[in-house]
């Protein structure tokens, strides 16, 4: 069992858990992920690692989307996860010099932090863009700012920072004449695709972390297959980080919707169940 040592509510739908997972922490590197399972009947859910300390504390950020993630964020300090397995996938390739823009959208900010930190420690100039729909959904601002040389915020409604999308900020940086050697973007699929389209005409190498549906996370099932440069790859073992300009985002988006109907059904059933038991599901 994997005990939750600390819970931090970041937004009404996003929490940060610090979990006791010493084995996972032993080799965890920026860009890798874990698979988490809450209990006996639960799904295996892939979550990108935010931090893994030497004393075995794993930080993960969870955003409530469907039933399973809602159940997860309702856990409290002292509760246990049935399973945490990892680190899985390939670490993010890290440059040794130059300037890298790291772009985090929504809860994608969490996994961008260890990458930004590692780059920063290597002496790379890190420009961070933290984006959300509105100010109250911005997460981990201090943490990201602490590991970047320049820190920018965007909100769609202009409630904080620059009004617009992360891509507007990225475009602005490029127009300003910032020489970007690389862009690393993690967030919703639509955001990552938009980032790829901003950098493509400028030939800026761009990496994204894909989060397709997974089951085992070890290369066994192949549900996470994505097309990169015309080749089928398994995101769980070959990724999850890929060259954004080579990714077939149409396919990735379509495959991401494969279980929408089931997700909706499970969520409705869960909500109903919560209501009928007075919230004690």
């Amino acid at each position, binding site marked *: 069992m994997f005990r939750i040592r600390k819970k931090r509510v970041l937004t009404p739908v996003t929490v940060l858990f610090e979990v006791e997972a010493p084995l996972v922490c032993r080799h965890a590197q920026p860009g890798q992920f874990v698979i988490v399972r809450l209990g006996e009947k639960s799904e295996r859910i892939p979550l990108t690692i935010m931090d893994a300390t030497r004393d075995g504390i794993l930080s993960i950020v969870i955003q409530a989307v469907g039933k399973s993630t809602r159940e997860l964020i309702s856990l409290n300090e002292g509760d246990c996860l049935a*399973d945490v397995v990892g680190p899985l996938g390939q670490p993010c390739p890290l440059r040794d010099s130059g300037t890298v823009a790291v772009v985090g959208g929504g809860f994608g900010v969490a996994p961008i932090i260890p990458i930004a930190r590692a780059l920063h420690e290597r002496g790379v100039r890190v420009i961070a863009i933290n984006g959300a729909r509105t100010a109250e959904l911005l997460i981990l601002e201090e943490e990201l700012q602490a590991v970047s040389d320049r820190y920018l915020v965007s909100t769609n409604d202009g409630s904080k920072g620059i009004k617009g999308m992360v891509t507007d900020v990225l475009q602005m940086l490029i127009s300003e004449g910032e020489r970007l050697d690389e862009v690393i973007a993690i967030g919703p699929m639509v955001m990552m695709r938009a980032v790829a389209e901003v950098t493509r005409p400028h030939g800026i190498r761009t990496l994204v972390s894909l989060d397709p549906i997974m*089951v085992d996370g*070890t290369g066994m*099932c*192949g549900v996470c297959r994505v097309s990169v440069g015309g080749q*089928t790859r398994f995101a769980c073992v070959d990724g999850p980080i890929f060259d954004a300009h080579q990714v077939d985002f149409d*396919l990735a988006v379509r495959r991401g919707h494969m279980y929408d109907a089931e997700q909706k*059904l499970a969520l409705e059933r869960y909500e109903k169940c919560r209501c009928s038991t007075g919230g004690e599901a």
Partner: protein
Amino acid sequence: MPLRKTKVPMPEQPPEERIRNFREVALGLTPELAREEAERCLQCKNPACEQGCPVNVRIKEFIGKLRQGDLEGAYRTIWATNILPSICGRVCPQEEQCEKYCLMGKKNEPVAIGRLERFLGDWAREQGLRLAEKAPPNGKRVAVVGSGPAGLTCASDLAQKGYEVTVFEALHVPGGVLMYGIPEFRLPKAVVQAEIDGLRALGVEIKTDVVVGKTLTVDDLFADGYQAVFLGTGAGLPNFLGIPGENFCGVYSANEFLTRINLMKGYLFPEYDTPVKCGRRVAVIGAGNVAMDAARCALRLGPEKVYIVYRRTWDEMPARREEIHHAKEEGIEFHLLTAPVEILGDENGWVTGMVCQRMELGEPDASGRRRPVPIPGSEYRLDVDTVIVAIGTTPNPLVSRSTPGLQTTSWGGLIIDEETGMTSRPGVFAGGDSVTGAATVILAMGAGRRAAAGIDRYLSEGGKRA
């Protein structure tokens, strides 16, 4: 009383009933039926059946004892060479092994050796009879990677010799392919669980959620004090066809489909959280045991049609005869001498059909089976909305890639010394599908046992040479 010419029929759930549940199909022989079947054995002077068994179970002897009503003696006889009779009795391809050589089978049906083996395994489990005994600890530690049939056998043998054994399993439950791959209706999970409980009773520690190659490397295991490592990591990487349309939604690897159902209990969604989506018309590509399992699982999810699409004929099918028979009985339609050439999809990326091509058999290929050759212009469209690819698996490279000095074949199989099971890396042993590619439970067990002996010798001789 003259000898029965045919096997005593196995009590089974009727097809029309069983296609609506996941409960076991073959219900098992009663003691009376088992005795009756045992009476059919000719007790040959030179029992050819035993040569057909990959682990040389003393078949004549166990059937002889069973006949005399000595069930415990019969079970002990099997157990001496096969610690998983309940499992092997259910999943071994007996028609290719013991029963193939049965003298009765020359003119009539062979003795149902597999069913008798299963009967005894189940009997012993119900009696709570456990033969494995803990030996006094010898102070040596061995790590077993993977908890499928190879790992379980290796761990059991070593624990009985006094080794302190830790089994590392990547998934959240131990059992490997016995849990995620083979369906409940063919191998009830309670049977597997009993074997795992038995292993724990021997003092073997099982650590789930550890992906060796990721969570820990083989080098970490040595650094952590294990003196030898056994790799029983199986062949878990699914092959795809490499035809257009394979990434449409609704195309599964058999591994994915079976894992969702068997391991994650997707057929009980939404009570269990992992869904499995099965359309109205399902095509399963391939005709091995995994293909039969996938087709029969699909059928139990209630579609209109389930097809097996196979490029050769009945004779070349690698599946157990009994599974093919069960699949036919259950109403699965076979499209033989047929190969898929393209999967078709709609604008949302969902499967709408499959273009197939008719084949004819040509000259034998490297596997000795006649090679299927496409018939030009024979393409036709099969209306399906779900495609399950069951054309084989290869060893998962997570361990070999993270272990310096480990030699593999061109297709990723671990290279070992046949006699000792040792790989190119001293102290690292391997066996089962990770060495041979996808094969059978019994072969993996045999390999696990050989490697356990190899490890014992290696560590007894001071860990220098095996």
